[in-house]
């Protein structure tokens, strides 16, 4: 009698505790779900709001007559477009790969920014640029209307459409009709076909997606030849000899053979990778993934090792332009010089292991992409003029001519002025043609090396 009472009490107790746990668990779960949902909804409605603002600003941009007003309007348009992109990237729709909406917004913003920059530098817009602006404003207006329709028709909480997805043409996931994903997928499809292609001086311009490497010259080589080139590259001056064991074809914009090399003579070291271009047999990358031990050699010695390595691989007229220290390695950057002019885009990097001073990495992608002999007109803006212009704001330490890359991969022939102001070091670039200030970099000197921001 007594015993069965104990059991009853035990069961009731267990049920009570279990029920309480389940109730609080459910409550927690619901709160988590709701807060996640809230952040998704916030992103959605923010995105729609930013597109609306973008639409208004682009409309105003067409009417603005004064440069100052136009710069403000276009710069704000860039800001709104970037904000819309950021919100779009937070929607729970990653599996639908809505990349065309992202790309459209990125290009509208980037294009507005490039026009604002032009106006701010005192130039006026060409007829073509005006027309592009009109087209973008119309496109954005359409996008805005579609988004407003999608959101404006809502009478209850929007559904995302991540459930009940079917497979459509070319295996593309198709969300259920009427969902947010459905609406955005349709927009994406339309923008993919209709968005104007724009070539201009910004990082998201159309031409940036297909940059052809300029220095990859020569005849096509075989995979066996690539193996021999890789062996020669790695074994020159090295104590351990390596032999090519496997290779892999790499397509894309810079087709290469990726060669794996194994140490010979039973040495227990990791395999090395060397990528050799299928045209001309140029080495793009070399990487020895051996983890370096604690740093022992000094940084000056490491820089010399990198310079020797690069010279021994046939690169001439290179100067060291910077170095960056990681815990046990040093990455040294060198650029080509054309008759004393530093061609920054033509750079190679060598990574030195600071335990033995061995070079464990090499990267010539920059050099192979942009290297060529350039026509350099004699400067109309003189070195003395650059010194005077810079001297008004800082103490000038050094001036040298340089070719500098811009964000759209174009180049400017400039005077590079290195100077100090307020205890900080800067590099200022003046166009040798007209003295225009093309770029300002801050030089960060730290125990880890010198780099610019």
């Amino acid at each position, binding site marked *: 009698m007594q015993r069965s009472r104990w059991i009853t009490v035990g069961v009731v107790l267990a049920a009570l505790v279990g029920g309480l746990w389940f109730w609080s668990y459910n409550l927690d779960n619901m709160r988590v779900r709701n807060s996640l949902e809230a952040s998704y909804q916030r992103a959605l409605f923010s995105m729609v709001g930013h597109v609306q603002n973008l639409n208004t600003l682009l409309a105003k941009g067409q009417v603005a007559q004064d440069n100052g007003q136009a710069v403000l309007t276009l710069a704000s348009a860039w800001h709104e477009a970037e904000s819309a992109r950021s919100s779009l990237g937070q929607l729970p729709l990653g599996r639908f790969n809505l990349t065309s909406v992202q*790309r459209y917004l990125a290009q509208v913003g980037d294009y507005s920014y490039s026009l604002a920059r032009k106006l701010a530098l005192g130039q006026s817009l060409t007829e073509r640029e005006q027309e592009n602006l009109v087209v973008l404003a119309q496109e954005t207006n359409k996008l805005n209307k579609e988004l407003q329709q999608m959101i404006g028709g809502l009478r209850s909480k929007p559904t995302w459409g991540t459930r009940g997805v079917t497979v459509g043409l070319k*295996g593309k996931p198709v969300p259920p009709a009427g969902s947010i994903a459905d609406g955005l997928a349709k927009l994406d499809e339309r923008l993919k076909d209709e968005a104007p292609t724009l070539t201009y001086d910004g990082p998201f311009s159309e031409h940036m997606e297909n940059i052809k490497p300029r220095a990859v010259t020569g005849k096509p080589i075989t995979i066996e030849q690539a193996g021999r080139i890789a062996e020669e590259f790695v074994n020159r001056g090295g104590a351990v000899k390596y032999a090519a064991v496997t290779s892999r074809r790499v397509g894309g914009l810079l087709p290469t053979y990726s060669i794996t090399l194994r140490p010979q003579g039973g040495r227990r070291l990791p395999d090395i990778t060397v990528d050799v271009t299928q045209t001309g047999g140029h080495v793009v*990358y070399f990487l020895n993934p051996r983890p370096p031990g604690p740093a022992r050699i000094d940084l000056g010695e490491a820089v010399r090792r990198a310079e020797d390595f690069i010279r021994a691989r046939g690169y001439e007229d290179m100067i060291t332009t910077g170095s960056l220290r990681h815990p046990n390695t040093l990455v040294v950057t060198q650029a080509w010089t054309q008759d004393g002019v530093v061609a920054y885009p033509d750079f190679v990097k060598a990574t030195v292991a600071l335990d033995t001073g061995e070079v464990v990495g090499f990267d010539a*992608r920059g050099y192979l992409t942009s290297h060529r002999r350039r026509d350099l007109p004699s400067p109309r803006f003189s070195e003395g003029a650059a010194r005077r212009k810079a001297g008004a704001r800082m103490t000038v330490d050094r001036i040298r001519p340089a070719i500098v890359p811009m964000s759209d991969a174009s180049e400017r022939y400039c005077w590079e002025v290195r100077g100090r102001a307020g205890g900080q070091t800067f590099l200022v670039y003046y166009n040798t043609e007209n003295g225009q200030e093309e770029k300002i970099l801050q030089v960060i000197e730290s125990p880890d090396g010198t780099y610019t921001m």
Partner: protein
Amino acid sequence: MRKAETSRRFLALVLGILAIAAIGKAQGWWKGETEKDLIAATSRAAASPQVGYPTYDDLWLLARLVSGEAHSEPYVGQVAVAAVVINRVQSPRFPPTVPGVIFEPDAFESVSNGIMWALPPTDENMAAAQAALDGWDPTYGALFFWNPAKVVSPWIWTRNIITSIGRHVFGR
């Protein structure tokens, strides 16, 4: 009399257990393993005296993603995964920051299932992330990668395939 006393004792016991349970919950005694790992890994990274070994920035997030997506891949395959993130950051088709790309909902399986936070990144993962940040891109511009042995959207095969490294196919 004795019966009533027993039930009162029981009631006190029950209330006691519930009270302890409630306090425990509030104090977070039963936090998930992953959360503990995160805290441990973060404080480890923060306490590390090594130069240039950042805590909560791009390098560390990249290394985390590499550990989640490519922990059993060869070194080159690990660099390749980090390089895809960097290629996305530079592409107009994806968010413009490393965290923006990594945490884009449903973009990476190891973020969705939490594997990214399961283990602190190894030295090899860190080195791979660093190599990609230094400019090594074994994928030459790939924006997607997938494991053909796993269930993937058939759409992914419509991408232009650039190369395959280890168990992953890389495409654009």
